[in-house]
């Protein structure tokens, strides 16, 4: 398992673990990781198997990925941790928090919904012609306004940056990730089992995981914090990095 920042001593710690979404890697978390590191909080932005610098074999289900992360935690004797997940990463956080509730202190689900069903045509594209899937995911992954730019991070063109990250992912990864999201079941029952503090950060203009499709999840968690970012699409860390950070700070303040 690859994690950033690599120089950290993580044995026996209680870190915040950042889990990326489909076709992405740890670099989507650079800003919050730098913040929490400066605040002397242990943070790990991981690359899921087959993503980024993680050379392990890609996994095709949320539960397998959760087990994989738990194995990693066991290896480093990490008994408890908090999880921040975006999109597919949010489902992994939910699975982990429901399967071993005693080990998770808090979860933040960013850009999430249940079910996270993926259109058959998109799945087929991801399998046969990933570039088409990348184009669709990028297009749907931003609000219309953000597709025209106006990035808070000066000089960076968001949609092309997202495409590039996905283009660099290994063959078959996007299909496996989307399939894992689509086949994730019992999300509402799992939500009920979560004991950790729960936060959902949602974009009002999210076309991939529309705000309305998070409502059932919200209703099944025990008193979740719901933060809605007006105008943002699905790529919240890119579209509204400062607001996302502020909400994470709010969650982890104590």
């Amino acid at each position, binding site marked *: 398992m690859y994690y950033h920042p690599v120089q950290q001593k993580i044995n026996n710690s209680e870190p915040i673990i950042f889990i990326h979404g489909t076709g992405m890697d740890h*670099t989507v978390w650079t800003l919050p990781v730098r913040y929490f590191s400066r605040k002397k909080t242990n943070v790990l932005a991981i690359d899921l198997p087959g993503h980024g610098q993680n050379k392990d074999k890609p996994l095709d289900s949320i539960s397998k990925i959760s087990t994989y992360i738990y194995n990693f935690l066991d290896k480093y004797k990490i008994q408890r941790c908090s999880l921040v997940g975006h999109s597919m990463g949010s489902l992994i956080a939910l699975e982990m928090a429901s399967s071993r509730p005693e080990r998770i202190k808090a979860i933040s689900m960013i850009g999430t919904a249940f079910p996270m069903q993926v259109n058959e045509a998109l799945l087929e594209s991801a399998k046969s012609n990933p570039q088409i899937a990348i184009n669709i995911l990028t297009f749907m992954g931003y609000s219309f306004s953000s597709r025209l730019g106006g990035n808070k991070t000066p000089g960076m063109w968001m949609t092309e940056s997202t495409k590039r990250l996905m283009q660099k992912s290994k063959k078959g990864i996007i299909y496996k990730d989307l399939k894992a999201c689509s086949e994730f079941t019992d999300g509402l029952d799992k939500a009920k089992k979560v004991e950790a503090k729960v936060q959902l950060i949602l974009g009002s203009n999210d076309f991939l995981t529309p705000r309305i499709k998070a409502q059932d999840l919200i209703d099944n968690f025990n008193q979740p914090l719901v933060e809605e970012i007006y105008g943002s699409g699905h790529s919240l860390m890119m579209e509204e990095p400062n607001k996302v950070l502020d909400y994470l700070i709010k969650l982890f303040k104590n």
Partner: protein
Amino acid sequence: MKKPKDLNLETLSLHAGNKPDSDFGSRATPIYQTSSFVFPDSETAAGIFNNERAGHTYSRITNPTNAVLEERISSLEGGIGAISTASGQAALFLAITTILGKGSHIVASKSLYGGSHNLLEYTLPRFGITSSFVDFRKPKNIKSAIQKNTGLIFGETLGNPGLDVMNIEMVSNIAHQNKLPLLVDSTFTTPYLMKPFDYGADLIFHSATKFLSGHGVVIGGLLVDSGNFEWSSNKKFKTLNEPYNGFHNMKFVEEFGPAAFINRARKEGARDFGACMSPHTAFLILQGLETLSLRMEKHISNTREIVSFLNEHKDVKSVSYPELEDHPDNKLAQEILPRGCGAVFTFEIEGGLESGKKFIESLNIFSHLANVGDAKSLVIHPASTTHHRMDTLALKNAGISESTVRLSIGIEDINDLKEDLDEALKQANR
């Protein structure tokens, strides 16, 4: 499922990067003519400085007006991000120094703009960076020029002023086989005529002074990163692969992945070299970009007519333009530059140097000056001006003789331009 449709160049030229101003609803991009930005509190200040928060600190490094321009050029080129600089030369310098240092080597096209040639041939060696200049039409020459310490391949989409058309796909293949990035000067073509990233270029820079701004009112440069090059594949790029003491031991490849280059360029080069663009300049370039497609269309149609007119003129020895069948890159130009080969070209006047001088001095509409890409038509004698530092061999390599005249065709009425040229040619040979 409905196929996603990316916006076209004509739309992006007007809108990319800009949102109506949130304070007053200004539709035009506001000019943030400020050196620095007020922080709401110390914690936010620390966060922006430490790259935890997005935001602006000081206009040498970033500025909201410039950021709109940077996003816009990135969108037009298909890049992930860009940096605006004080000039095209500053953009070239920033590109080179972000990845190279003492002991590095560049393989460059022998057909370069005189200013770029000066930098590589005379100035950079003082800082330990040397260059070899080769004919980019010959793959063998490029391959054999690559040394152990080579860190960059560099050429122009259209060589200045000989208009060699760079076979970007071929050159980028050679570069990538050697785990090297290809930097392309795309000033003459602009994204309207060609997008070098589509053919494998890794980095692009523009002198935005030219067609992008289009009115000859500013000096500015833009450096664009495709985000495609695998910097981690070649450990010789130490600035991106190793911890940087100048920014809390940041490892750019690890923290930014595909955006490692452009982040290093901003966090080091923009910060330390200081060759930044004024926000007012950025605004003027944005204004120019809004009409890029309209202007380029007219530049090209006028150029095609003038090329044809001069090619048949009795007082003209030869015309060099890639759309002409006798140009060595005619076939390649048809493939990669179907919308046109730019609006700058050279011709050889009958009568040599003296005729050339008389011709230039006899023109009325064409302005005699050292620039190209203005909406107004321009003329210059390269051997005595833009390329005067080159020796005879270098001039020959760049396709320049003493009787070479360079024209930059503007968007005036075509008949007025033809009459001006015709009259000046008559005067020159009287």
